[in-house]
């Protein structure tokens, strides 16, 4: 199905089943948060896992998506689907600007350029009026889907988030397994050779950068509607770091890895909250153990041991 290998098909249906059953057991708002961050991590993984571009500034797209969605839903009363779409578009637009500059360099220079641009964006967000400074945009209404269905109840919102998440997840999978995706992987493995075969690698890199940024913007937009807030936390550097942690933990270059990684990180943040400083300590320990013991990430390691593609 859609270029899924058999284990991937099994894992996909397992994930869909989990999404459907989970709200009966776990708290829906928590699960929505996991899905928003899972989508964010998948978008990030599209860049680092399949093209080998490590962006240190993905919070900019996520955060701007959140701000734009929150602002358009609150101030202009846009319906949620349009507001989220607007978040994705602005995320993608910002990605075009960042990407145009950043893809000219590789490795650490690429990372530093994205980081610098994201910090400039953070600086702008503290100054701009529409972001509400350090108070953020508060009390964003979830609104009515298509102007008809109220999303006030957590389960209705959950359904919308789940559908968008699965749709974007499939889109990413489709991108990776399309001829376009094959070129991306060729660039990751050996860029000069891809060039010698006649591909304009810069165009491909820019296009995937914009796609990744747009999906990150959608993830941010969904998050701002779920919680009704968009704040500086979303555009700040620790958010870019967190998404790297999620992708690393789950397994870069695997399609399910970032989802698992995001679930682990968000669960730690949520369920270790009563223990104070232990949240950050545990996160650090988990990161070190992951890097030392299974460098391909949880899912990556599982896939390698069992010789599956996940």
């Amino acid at each position, binding site marked *: 199905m859609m270029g899924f290998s058999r284990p991937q098909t099994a894992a996909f249906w397992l994930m869909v089943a989990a999404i459907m059953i989970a709200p009966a057991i776990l*708290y829906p*708002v*928590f699960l929505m*948060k996991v899905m928003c961050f899972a989508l964010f991590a998948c978008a990030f993984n599209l860049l680092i896992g399949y093209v080998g571009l490590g962006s240190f500034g993905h919070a900019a797209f996520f955060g701007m998506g959140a701000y734009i969605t929150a602002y358009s839903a609150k101030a202009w009363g846009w319906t949620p689907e349009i507001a989220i779409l607007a978040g994705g578009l602005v995320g993608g637009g910002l990605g075009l600007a960042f990407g145009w500059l950043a893809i000219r360099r590789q490795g650490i220079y690429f990372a530093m350029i994205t980081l610098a641009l994201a910090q400039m964006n953070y*600086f702008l967000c*503290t*100054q701009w*009026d529409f972001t*509400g*400074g*350090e*108070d*953020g945009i*508060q*009390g964003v209404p979830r609104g009515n889907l298509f102007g008809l269905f109220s999303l006030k109840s957590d389960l209705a919102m959950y359904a919308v988030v789940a559908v968008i998440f699965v749709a974007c997840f499939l889109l990413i999978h489709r991108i990776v397994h399309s001829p376009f995706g094959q070129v991306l992987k060729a660039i990751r493995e050996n860029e000069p050779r891809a060039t010698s075969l006649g591909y304009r690698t810069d165009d491909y890199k820019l296009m995937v950068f914009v796609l990744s940024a747009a999906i990150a913007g959608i993830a941010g937009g969904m*998050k701002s509607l779920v*919680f*009704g*807030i968009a*704040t*500086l*936390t*979303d555009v700040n550097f620790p958010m870019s770091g967190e998404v790297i942690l999620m992708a690393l933990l789950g397994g870069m270059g695997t399609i399910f890895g970032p989802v698992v990684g995001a679930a682990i990180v968000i669960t730690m*943040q*949520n369920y*270790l*909250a*009563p*223990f*104070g*400083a*232990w*949240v*950050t300590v545990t996160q650090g320990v988990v990161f070190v153990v992951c890097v030392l013991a299974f460098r391909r990430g949880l899912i990556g390691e599982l896939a390698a041991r069992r010789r599956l593609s996940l």
Partner: protein
Amino acid sequence: MSLSRRALLGTAAAVPAAATFRSARAQRPVVKIGVLTDLSGVYQDIVGPLAVESTRLAVADFGDRGFDVEVLIGDHQNKPDIGSNLVRQWYDRDGVDIVVEGGSSAVALAVSGVARDKNKAYINSGGATSDLTGTQCNANTLHWTYDTYMLAKSTGAAMVKAGGNSWFFITADYAFGHALTRDVGNFVTQAGGRVLGGVRTPFPGTTDFSSYLLQAQASGAKVIGLANAGADTTNCIKQAKEFGITTPLAGLLMFISDVHSLGLDTCQGLVLTESFYWNLNDRTRAFSDRLWKRMPNRRAGMANAGPYSSTLHFLKAVQAMGPAEAKKSGAALIAQMKKMPTDDDVHGQGIIREDGRKIHPAYLFQVKKPSESKGPWDYYNLLGTTPADEAFRPMKDGNCPLVKA
């Protein structure tokens, strides 16, 4: 697996015992308090573990009056979405009736919105934004310890009365800094003082304040107002000391824990406002000694002590309404709390206004010289007091939708 006879008998005896124990507990109503605070980040000294302990102390001081009180703790990690998620879970799943504290302004506003949506109660202590009782006020939220208006009013007006009648501002160049400068400047002028000038420092990221400090000193102002927060403020204070600047600095968002970590030698002469100081009077000393026994070697600042005062008042309101009634509606519970006058060891006697603002005096302190300090945590001299009815923004100026009704 083999079972010994003794283990079997033991289990048999334990089951009915546990059952009776459970039924005896079930008859007592339980109210649950969630303390949402910063346990791992930059605000952990201002609120953090000491705020949790002062909440527990309030529960202990209130004693057993026919219902059980459970305290839950959560770390919002300074991220509004984590705070909001935790609080939703507390309200929806864990049966929490009231959330106290709530850290930074963004977290506080987010939690306040959740409390309104779920019709539960929330009392903020650590957040500074006066919007909580202004344009963003709601019937489920109280703002307890302080706010930006109180800090500006006390530091601006009371300082002029105490002789500091010409000011120069060092302002962090973003909305918070601009607002603080404008507010304090207004109070200074109203009280008959003058603002000689100011300088804006890029935010975030300024670490070298020396040129701004020298500019401030050259202006000849009697007070240098620091309209910034956190690391910016502490950097200004340290660098002022290094450059030998003798003009008193006025920290507009400072707490006793900041003074403690910087040391008296660096901070001496600094002027700041708090609504609580442990060594203020007999009642505050008695409270602080009880807290010291639970958490030695630390003294509470106003944001640490606030949750004690608010929790105690909450428990009194629960007793007045009856626990069953109090658990039903957060808005009714908050309305009951507004009806009753407050009285506790932290803020003394006070009231809660219709817009959710808790009213008490604000104190202007000057940090002692090392030679004046008689012991650990003996840091402040009282410079002036702003009475309760003047310390906070008049209700008509706040534009709180609740007030019109």
